[in-house]
């Protein structure tokens, strides 16, 4: 059996085992589904209510993606500026660290105050959650360019832009993709967070409503959907990453998912 196949097999066994243990423990200890529903109940709810859940899934997905794309754009621009310029690094970094230390839950009410409830605060929270890891990774990648190589290029008459384009950015790609995978999960957390506070749509809202109705299986169905979406996007970025930055791992199949 190939290494690849065995790896997948074990990953599958682990996931199935996790759910099986959960199911068996719940049955054995007779846990009420108000406290912890069994996975089979959750899946049943999921299938049952998919028609109602689906628009909410789409809502969460598109707010997350817009927030994520904006966050990546902002993150790349700030990260590139910080990585290239020492002055920008010294001036902007303290502010950024201060901002990233703020719990984003605390920011949501402010966004709601400014923009009303709904999609806008969700997008902004997703953005606020996800741009920081991108800034840090892009800046690090750019700042670690070998000085000798920079000398070689400068002596050829390369401009700062030439160096950024030919060396800085490609070198940053592995860092960038690593941060994308983190950022996309953060973006989900952000938009769902905002939906739970102020929205009448989205998975976060569904879960809030369900929990106030003691519909615990539906709460868990929401959690499962979020996990599934998170995995889906993570895998998508891993596949792109393996294509773009295969050179960094020196082996195909090593970077994939």
């Amino acid at each position, binding site marked *: 059996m190939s290494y690849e196949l065995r790896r997948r097999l074990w990953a599958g066994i682990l996931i199935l085992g996790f759910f099986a243990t959960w199911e068996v423990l719940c049955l054995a200890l007779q846990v009420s589904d108000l406290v912890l529903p069994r996975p089979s109940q959750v899946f049943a709810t999921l299938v049952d209510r998919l028609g109602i859940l689906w628009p909410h899934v789409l809502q969460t997905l598109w707010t997350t993606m817009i927030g994520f794309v904006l966050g990546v754009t902002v993150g790349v621009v700030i990260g590139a500026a910080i990585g290239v310029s020492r002055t920008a690094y010294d001036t902007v970094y303290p502010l950024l660290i201060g901002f990233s230390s703020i719990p984003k839950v605390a920011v949501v009410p402010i966004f709601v105050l400014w923009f009303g409830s709904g999609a806008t605060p969700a997008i902004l929270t997703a953005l606020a959650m996800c741009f920081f890891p991108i800034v840090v990774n892009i800046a690090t990648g750019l700042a670690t360019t*070998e000085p*000798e*190589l920079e*000398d*070689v*290029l*400068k*002596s*050829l*008459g*390369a401009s700062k832009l*030439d160096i950024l384009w*030919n*060396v800085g950015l*490609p*070198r940053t*790609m592995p860092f960038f993709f690593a941060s994308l995978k983190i950022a996309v999960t953060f973006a989900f957390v952000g938009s769902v967070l905002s939906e739970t506070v102020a929205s009448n749509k989205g998975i976060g809202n569904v879960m809030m409503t369900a929990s106030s109705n003691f519909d615990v299986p539906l709460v868990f169905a929401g959690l499962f959907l979020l996990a599934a979406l998170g995995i889906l996007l993570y895998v998508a970025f891993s596949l792109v990453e393996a294509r773009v*930055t295969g*050179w*960094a791992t*020196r082996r195909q199949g090593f970077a994939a998912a």
Partner: protein
Amino acid sequence: MSPSHAIQQGRSSIAVELSQAAVSFGKPGKAVPALQETNLRIADGEFVALVGPSGCGKSTILRLTAGLLQPTRGAVLVGGREVAAKALRIGMAFQNPTMLPWLTIERNVMLPLKIVRPFRSDYRAKRKTEYRDRVHALLADVGLDKFAGHYPWQLSGGMLQRANLCRALIHEPSLLLLDEPFGALDQFTREELWGTMQSLWLKRKPTVLLITHDLKEAGFLASRVCVMSARPGRIIDDSAVDFPRPRTIQMTFDSEFVALNQRLRDLIIDARTDTAIRGA
């Protein structure tokens, strides 16, 4: 011939000229001198090796010549003009080959053509035809033609350094600056690369400034060896090396070569103990 004409003619055949060039680092008042007033003239097509104790300012001279550093006092002329890091056709290679890991050897060597004028304007059109052939021809000269499609991590240290030399030469620079390019290699690979370097130079005759710790390397490759004193350095000896070319490793065992080696060695040891005494 009028005297001014003679000077002009003299100028045109001088590739590099440092006149009273001095460098110090740090703020004025607390400045640390790195290079004392130095005069150095390198004629077109000359191969000059610069040796000296470590930290003496060899690399400072190289960086001055490349235009990466401005002299605190004095002037640095390359091709008769003050260096301003613009429009100079310089090739550089360091001890660390710094190949870009995401490009094949072919594309790595081609990199200068993507940046240097006038090549860069045609880069898109010619990278798969004319430039590619050019890279392959140069790689063949150093025995790497079969590795054009490989990635840097698939090559050994010696091969990477060959590719590094190719990258420094692909845009046909009139001036080649080498900072201990063979320093990290084992002795046999190093000697092999001296041969490669020599044949590249004999074929293209660029002006070369080589910085090295290895006196044998200096004697083998250079047509002139300059010795520097300890930090803050200056040039204390400047001697021509007239052994016929192409030189062979066998030649390095001749008594004349050994004598040159010993003389250079004594000069450097003197320069070092000199500072040791001054420092005490």
